[in-house]
């Protein structure tokens, strides 16, 4: 049926494309230390984008039987659409697939028994704790067809595991710690449990820290959150609208020269990799920040044309939406200091792992303000307990242009590969001093 629709659309449109996504997943959820549910999900859909007289119309459906109606709706919406005079790519191919063949070895019984042993491990150290574990296996495919003759597809797979612990201390304080991992194939995640035990142990004692400008060491998990705020300024849509703080800063140095960040859709084994983007553009590695200098914005075809920049494979969409610019894997270059030495260099400061409410401030200008969900006091180079009921407030962009130290160790946090980061003077306020 899809071929007939293509023939019909070809007669009416300057160009069109059809995206078809389909997939299934099996999430297993442990809640409150026990198996709660096993799920099986199937979902698929079609998105039709047409360009008629330079105007773009779009519609979608999740039933292949109603694809002709969706195509008809897209055509009838086109006169209302935005003027788009870019062209679609003529060809692309899948040089690799973000698909782990061993994903098919996923076994519900084994996953349940693995999760139970991870929970037992945590409970053996904290018998009062409440642990949730979520494991998901998913796989699927995407196919893209367009009027320029492109017809390409690839398979993808994802295995993800997440653990979160809640522990209420004798004093009545609540400690929440979470960790997660993801891959294209099944992986062992017991190390996440060990890390959760370590962080919870450190959080049992509560300490205070005087308000003021203090040195702050951020874990990779915390750095990834901070970098999410920076990353939003690299979105070509924000640049085009003039609301990116980096809009007029291309080729300008605005961060410390130690800052090097890449977007890389070709990282092997990553579920965030893809051979071509959702508009059929071959996806390649690109620097975003090189030695503190803004290099590239990430873009879809529409904004590449508007900004006169080259599309490098960052157009993203599901079947029910038009493309928008999106990141793939983010890599932040490592530094040269071991984490241990960074910690030892701090006489009085804090280590931050988790925030509450970061990103609700006016982040367009780099302002950040957040309560600290999980943070620790550092005294004379050692972690001596948890700080809570406190917040940091500062301008992230100024901080990243000041003194920073990056660790030689890096950790994978979601789609980002991230080092620890030390900022020497961050504004910190404690509530009960």
């Amino acid at each position, binding site marked *: 049926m899809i071929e007939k629709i293509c023939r019909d659309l070809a007669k009416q449109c300057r160009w069109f494309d059809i995206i078809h996504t389909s997939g299934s997943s099996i999430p297993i959820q442990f809640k*409150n*230390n*026990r*198996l*709660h*549910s*096993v*799920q*099986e*999900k*199937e*979902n*698929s*859909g079609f998105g039709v984008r047409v360009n008629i007289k330079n105007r773009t119309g*779009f*519609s*979608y*459906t*999740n*039933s292949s039987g*109603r694809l002709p109606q*969706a195509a008809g709706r897209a055509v009838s919406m086109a006169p*209302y659409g*935005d003027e788009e005079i870019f062209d679609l790519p003529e060809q692309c191919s899948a040089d690799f697939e973000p698909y782990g063949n061993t994903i098919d070895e996923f076994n*519900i019984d084994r996953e*349940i028994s693995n999760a139970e042993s991870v929970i037992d491990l945590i409970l053996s150290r904290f018998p*009062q704790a*409440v642990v949730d574990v979520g494991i998901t296996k998913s796989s699927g495919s995407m196919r893209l067809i367009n009027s320029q003759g492109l017809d390409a597809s690839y398979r993808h797979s994802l295995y993800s595991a997440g653990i979160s612990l*809640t*522990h*209420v201390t004798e004093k009545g304080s*609540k400690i929440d710690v979470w960790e997660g991992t993801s891959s294209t194939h099944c992986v062992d995640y017991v190390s996440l449990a060990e890390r959760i035990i370590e962080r919870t142990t450190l959080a049992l004692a509560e300490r205070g820290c005087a*308000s*003021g*400008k203090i040195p702050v060491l951020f874990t990779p998990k915390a750095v990834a959150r901070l970098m999410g705020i920076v990353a939003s300024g690299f979105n070509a849509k924000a640049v085009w*609208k*003039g*609301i990116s*703080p980096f809009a007029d800063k291309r080729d300008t140095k605005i961060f410390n020269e130690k800052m090097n960040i890449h977007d890389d859709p070709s990282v092997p084994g990553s579920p965030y990799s893809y051979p071509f983007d959702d508009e059929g553009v071959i996806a390649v590695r690109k620097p975003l920040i090189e030695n503190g200098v803004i290099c590239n914005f990430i873009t879809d075809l529409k904004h590449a044309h508007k900004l006169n920049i080259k599309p490098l494979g960052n157009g993203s969409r599901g079947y029910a*939406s*038009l493309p928008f610019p999106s990141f793939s894997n983010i890599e932040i270059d490592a530094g040269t200091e071991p984490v241990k030495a960074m910690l030892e260099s701090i006489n009085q400061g804090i280590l931050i792992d988790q925030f*509450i*409410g970061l990103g*609700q*401030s*006016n982040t*367009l*200008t780099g302002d950040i*303000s*957040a*309560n600290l969900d999980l943070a620790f006091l550092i005294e004379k180079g050692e972690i001596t307990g948890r700080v*809570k*009921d406190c*917040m*940091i*407030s500062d*301008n992230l962009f100024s901080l990243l242009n000041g003194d920073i130290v990056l660790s030689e160790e890096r950790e994978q946090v979601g789609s980002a590969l991230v080092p620890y980061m030390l900022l020497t003077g961050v*504004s910190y*306020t404690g*509530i009960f001093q």
Partner: protein
Amino acid sequence: MDFGIDSVADKILSRIANVSGDYAEVRLSAGAGTTITLSGSEIDLFTSGDSVAGSVRILSRGTWTFVSFNNIEDTESFLKKGLSIASKIPAGTSTIRKTKAVAAQYATRCAVPLDKVGLDEKFELTKKYNGILGSHRNIQTTRSTYRDSQSRYIFLNTEGSDLRYDRSYCGISLASVARDGAVIQPFHESVSGYGGFEIVRGREAVAEKVVKTSADLLKAEPAPAGTHRVIVDPKLAGVFIHEAFGHLSEADFVYENPQMRDLMVLGKKFGPEDLNVYDDGTMNALAGFIPFDDEGIIPARTALIKSGVLSGRLHSRETSEKMNEEPTGNGRALNVMRQPLVRMTNTFIDRGPHDPEALFDSIGDGIYAVDVIGGQTNLEMFTFTSGYGYEIKNGKKGRMLKDIVLSGNVFHTMDSIGMIASDVQMFGGLGGCGKGGQSPLPVSFGGPHLLINNVLIGGKQ
């Protein structure tokens, strides 16, 4: 608008009655919607699409099985598949509250049905608001979103319940971004509810307020960091009660956690004598309205705090059974493809004894925090960001402030509520609440003006 789901449901009805096991339910939906997003002079998105979906949830030997799909013609085989998975997975300890069968049909009352309004008219209205949003020389860009959906939703379970609901929802979200040099200042408002096109018509004043506020904020100064006495407006009071307290009253956080149960024991003092807090899914004009929850329970008004004392909490069938408390109709799912979780509906602080002016008369020096950008909590500590505010000197509103980020400890802050005014207002919008990866779930929240002592405001020192 049913794409055949009623005939699928009618066939399943006889099948589900014979399902063995503790409990099973089938949910089906079919819907269509339109989204229009204009940004500056551009049309970001103008689409209308359709979708059908279904799911089967089974409780067998104490463990839940959930199967979701959009090929609803095969609902019966997905039910079989669910039963097959349920028979193989390990036994668990989940139990649920059983209720009597309910059979009913519901439909949103619409003055102007959405399918009787042409795409032209929806587009022109959005364009009109977008024009107002850009009507100031300092506006860098705007974003106006119109969204509507009409759907039919069917809920069936092994207790014999058969609930069918024709739902019509629409709303607008209006944002302006003002810029002066390096200062970039966004502001937005949103309006939504169950009904027809009448919900979004005649909202010029909302757009005018958005553009004026974002432009005015360019000249506002950052709030001074430190601990302050704060008056919060009804919208911020609503977000505060939703974020800081409402989530804490969701029973799934406490029902299998003895430590949390101790913290949230009914009868515990939780604020001043004048404080009364409710969650009420029956308020039918508001975004959190539900005729029945996604476990087939008819909602009720639940008193969460009465006269400053913890008096109730929000339940799903499972938490209700485990805690031996009555179900409240708060088992809600984002859509039929997701499992129900304990969620809020319309949550608010009820009116207090004071005239709003009396709060200003008694505060002395402090901060008046107005409107809200967002909020987050870990159930003990919270952060939320006010849209803007004013310095208060000697009870008088002074210079405009921005970047007011309020942080605190839920338990201390509830206890620090000093005065409660009588001017309750409710708020909703196209956004909503997020939990367990299900966002945005439509909810509303509200309250009167509150005076709170000892609120930590972040900022540069």
